[in-house]
């Protein structure tokens, strides 16, 4: 079955008992047992819930994995994956990754004796150089958020495995519709399912998939012990959203391509960061590992233009954090999603106040372009 069909027909999608074509929403905390310890497959919803099970089977199915594990947010998914490590372990992470992940690594996980090096993972030699004898895992975003830095998943997987480390890939910008890191050798693929997978700005969830039975067992244990589980209703809404992932993202990607081209021709725009542009650094690597450039892009406004004014001047775009929704979202990362970084670190990364991130939704691209044009006009005007 091809992926678009797999997205519509998850295994066991039809209810065996009633014929319902959707999984029931089991809003229950506990399950009645026949005798102590003898139950019908479930005892408590933190440990397992039929609606959540269906979601976990579904995500594994579309990520080309054997196991799926779900969490209450993308950050809960990343946190749970990091709990596979122990004090003294070292992590290599993509420089300039999402501010929430940076905050987790530098302000929380470090307290437990797990230290991270932030490295340009688009540069294999830099990764190699960052390895220490205690490096146990790599956490890679590709494309990275918001600089769209491309990392070569196949090559990094080979390097990581040669050095005995796990490769975790945060695939949020692509979703399995466009990129399936497990097929490229990653050990774990992490999705903030809040974004493209759900796609409707109405659920927070995180998903992890793997082909490794041992890692899956350990993650299920962490999921149950730590308890950051998604609610049955959120699981159900997420599955509902996933059914339209292919049509949504394909449409959004086509619009993003047009918007990227348009921005590239604007004199006010210094640089467009989008792996769909042939001139973009990483274009070839991305093309070799993904089925498309996606629907998120960033661009740098020229000197003298105030990005804060620009992002506040739109009317069709929604000024907000998050991405991957049916609504187009515009963000100024340095002041919104990456606040946890020290200012000097942002400057070093090239993550300036002039950087704007776009997540293209389902609106007519002509409306989106016209809105950006109006906002550029308003930003150029003095005063």
């Amino acid at each position, binding site marked *: 079955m091809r992926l678009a069909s797999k997205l519509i027909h998850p295994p066991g999608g*039809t*209810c*065996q*008992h*009633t*014929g*319902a*074509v*959707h999984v*029931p*929403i*089991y*809003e*229950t*905390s*506990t*399950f*009645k*047992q*026949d005798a102590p310890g003898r*139950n*019908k*497959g*479930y005892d408590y919803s933190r440990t397992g819930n*039929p*609606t959540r099970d269906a979601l976990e089977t579904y995500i594994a199915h579309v990520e080309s994995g054997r196991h799926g594990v779900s969490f209450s947010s993308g950050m809960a998914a990343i946190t749970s994956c990091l709990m596979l490590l122990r004090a003294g372990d070292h992590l290599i992470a993509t420089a300039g990754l999402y501010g929430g992940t940076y905050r987790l690594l530098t302000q929380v996980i470090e307290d437990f004796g797990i230290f991270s090096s932030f490295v340009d993972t688009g540069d294999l030699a830099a990764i190699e150089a960052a390895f220490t004898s205690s490096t146990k895992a790599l956490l890679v975003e590709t494309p990275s958020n918001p600089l769209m830095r491309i990392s070569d998943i196949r090559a990094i997987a080979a390097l990581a495995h040669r050095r005995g480390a796990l490769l975790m890939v945060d695939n949020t910008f692509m979703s399995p519709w466009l990129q399936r890191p497990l097929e490229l050798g990653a050990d774990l693929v992490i999705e903030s399912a809040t974004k493209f997978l759900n796609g409707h700005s109405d659920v927070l969830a995180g998903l992890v998939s793997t082909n490794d039975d041992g890692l899956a067992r350990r993650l299920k244990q962490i999921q149950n012990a730590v308890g950051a589980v998604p609610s049955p*209703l959120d699981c*159900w809404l997420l599955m509902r959203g996933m059914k339209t992932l292919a049509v949504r993202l394909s449409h959004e990607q086509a619009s993003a391509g047009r918007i990227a081209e348009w921005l590239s021709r604007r004199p006010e725009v210094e640089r467009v960061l989008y792996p769909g542009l042939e001139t973009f650094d990483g274009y070839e690597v991305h093309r070799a590992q993904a089925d498309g450039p996606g629907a998120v892009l960033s661009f740098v406004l020229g000197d003298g233009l105030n990005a804060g004014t620009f992002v506040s001047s739109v009317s069709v775009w929604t000024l907000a954090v998050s991405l991957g929704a049916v609504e187009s979202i515009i963000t100024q990362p340095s002041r919104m999603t990456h606040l946890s970084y020290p200012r000097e670190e942002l400057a070093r990364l090239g993550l300036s106040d002039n950087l704007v991130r776009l997540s293209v939704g389902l609106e007519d691209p002509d409306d989106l372009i016209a809105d950006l044009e109006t906002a550029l006009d308003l930003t150029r005007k003095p005063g």
Partner: protein
Amino acid sequence: MAMATRKIGSTECVHSGVSTCETTGSVAPPIVHSAPFTFESIGAALDYLEGRSTRRQPEYGRMANPTVTCVESRLAALEGAEKAQLFASGMAAITTLLLCTLKSGDHVVLTSDCYKRTRDFCEGSLSKFGVTTSVVAPSLEAIEGAIGSATRLVFTETPTNPFQYVVDIEGLAKLGRERGVLTVVDSTFATPVYLRPLEFGIDLVVHSATKYLGGHNDLIAGVVAGRAELVQPIADLLATLGGICDPTTAFLLGRGVKTLALRMARHSANGQAVAEFLEGHPRVRKVFYPGLASHPHHAIARKLMLGFGGVVTFLLDADREGTARFIDRLKIPSLGPSLGGVESLVEQVILFGYLDIPPEERQRLGVPDNLVRLSLGIENTEDIIADLQQALNDV
């Protein structure tokens, strides 16, 4: 001698009907959102359609839904009914019931003090199909006097809205049997915790489940319950008319019913205390609450019912503007229609449904400008009374 309804409490509210999911043990019914309900094969479909299968779920969600069916089983148990059917709203329940049981040439007897849209439907929509309606006072004598050879159905609320008259439903049931007339009671104000009309021999009981049954001001639903031979044709017509209850609403309703007995006790305590407080207040002309000795139907209410709920209707000693000022000064109850939720609500009765009617006609319908209906929630009694006190000071 009429006997009050058998007491039912939280045990019944929590456990009656199908309560745990047989396939997983889930203690809450799963919410099954599905339009079609598929079959393994043509053979399996034929087995179902020709009655050879153990499957109970029809092929399409408009005909039945597993979550809805589960909640219906709980409501049927609470009402002492063979079968209950949920609807998209109380009005969907009432209109489907009437459209199912009546035909051209039939006559309906309706009691005067009832929800305006029920009356409008009978006098307006049903008259288009050749059904005639008599509207009479909510008393057994008046109802009996209106029954003629073409009378097919008597519909009354008890307690009525908003004056809370209580009809002798045991007498009504007997009358219905003698005269071959179907008796229907809208029991929204009483709930099965306080009154179970079917136990007195009434044929069908109707609720706006939006009110006390749901209890949280967060859903809209209706229910009809009674003998299967009467409810099944209504369910069949519903599958055609389509005013069905959705599974999430049914789930929330079933969840609300679990605390019904607890909530009713609090609603009633607030109702009685507030009714007594208002009755003793110089700025209040008259209070209508069946728990007050001054209510014209207090004796029959005490005989039939186990409690009186949280709706208190009263006439303020004020004109239209003074009444509006009083309501606007209230801090705890929100201004809005509906009733029966945990949050208190208040309305100037003329506001919702009567504004387009001239004042003289409103007066004739018994809905004067200074009529206020309070639906007391489960807030602290002293807080509610203090709030009423401060607002009354301004009248």
